[in-house]
């Protein structure tokens, strides 16, 4: 799925415009750049990038409401870069839950491709294909 989101944004300019116009997503962790206890933290896949995105909760990075194949939310803090398919390390500082990461396959099926234990000491590498994450759960974040 790693190329699908980008491709769809290209072929659906209206959707892309909506994405730019979308308000900041509600879940931004504590809003600081430090990954603190309780946050699930993603770091951008870019050389020397310190861009991060933090969540308190599980999230579908591939938003589908009213738009089956485009994503309209979740960017690295202070940038317009999508979190989806753009994170190469994760630090899970959820104090309770293992976090499961999700991708979507060629046939449109969500699958778990990585897990991160609670209270992680550091950012750990992850394959750069995220479409969502869940807490303490083997259900994709949107129920699909």
């Amino acid at each position, binding site marked *: 799925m790693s190329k*699908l989101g980008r491709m769809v944004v290209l072929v659906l300019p209206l959707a892309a415009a909506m994405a730019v116009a979308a308000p900041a997503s*509600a*879940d931004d962790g*504590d809003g600081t750049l430090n990954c*603190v*206890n*309780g*946050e699930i933290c993603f770091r951008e896949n870019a050389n020397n990038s310190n861009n991060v995105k933090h969540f*308190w*909760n*599980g999230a579908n990075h591939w938003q*589908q*409401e*009213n738009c*089956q*194949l485009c994503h309209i939310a979740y960017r690295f803090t202070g940038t317009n870069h999508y979190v989806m398919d753009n994170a190469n390390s994760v630090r899970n500082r*959820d*104090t*309770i*839950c*293992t976090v*499961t990461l999700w*991708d979507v*396959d*060629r*046939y*449109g*099926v969500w*699958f*778990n*491709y*990585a*897990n*991160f*234990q*609670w*209270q992680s*000491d550091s950012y*750990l590498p*992850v*394959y750069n*294909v995220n479409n969502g994450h*869940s*807490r*303490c*759960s*083997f*259900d*994709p974040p*949107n*129920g*699909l």
Partner: protein
Amino acid sequence: MGLWKMRCLAVGVAAGIVVGLGGCGGDKPATIPVNAQQPFDIVLGDKVGLIDYAVQRMRDTCMQAAGYPQNLQAIPDRPSNPYQSLTIKAQDFGPVTEDEARRLGFGHDTQGEPPRVVSFDPNYDLNLDRCKKSAEEKLGTDARETRQSYNGLVNDLLAYRREVTDNVPADLPEKTLRCMESKGYTVADRAEFLKKPQPQRFGVKFGVLDSVPEVTWTPPQVPGTVQVGPAIPARKYRPTAEESALAVAWFRCGEETGRIKHMVAAASALQLRYVEKYQDRLGELNPKIEALARNAAALATG
């Protein structure tokens, strides 16, 4: 446990067959025969669950003694295998009965989640690190490193799943599209569908999970406090009527083309390859996990 569930479980255990939850949850049995080998049974997920449970419980007992009871009150009350998705299940590739397709479309009801415990208190942070370190050392001096290495290994094994859809018959997308067209479903771009044969491409609006306020909880950021968010309840997936109809057609076409059987067979073959590829690391780490799990069990009963 009802008779049907007991029979499902007995058959599954005896024959190595994984029957979809839908088949064991009150629906008619899956009509798609699935006889998957489970090469990733070599991964010690249950034992890792036991280790995690022991560490978390010892950590949080220590936290309670330090004046922070929040985690002990919030953690799950039993061990669970954090690597359940390694088991190949037919329903992971789409609806496995017509009833399920009609009832759930392409979605699933979700289980609940425990509360969130988040910190704005540096003293909590110091104690959480101290208590985790102390809990891990009770299990073994290598507990943290072994657990982290094992998680990395499992993430490497999970990469098999990305290859599954490239290891099914090449004409499957075309057969799927022809079948769906015969049932009245069309796509705007045939070539694009053949590259990405996704049911989302038929222009049908999908449903949503029940909306509950607990999902979007954000803590009040009060310095010096520890905030506890509510547990998230189990939620129902509500497909649209068009999604249900599409899912029934997709299921029927899946039976005609053997889609799920092909996916399961590909998954099983790939897992075998990955076990061979990572056998040295499995051989090195499995005994260490076994030893930590023995210590965890002893601490739980001691």
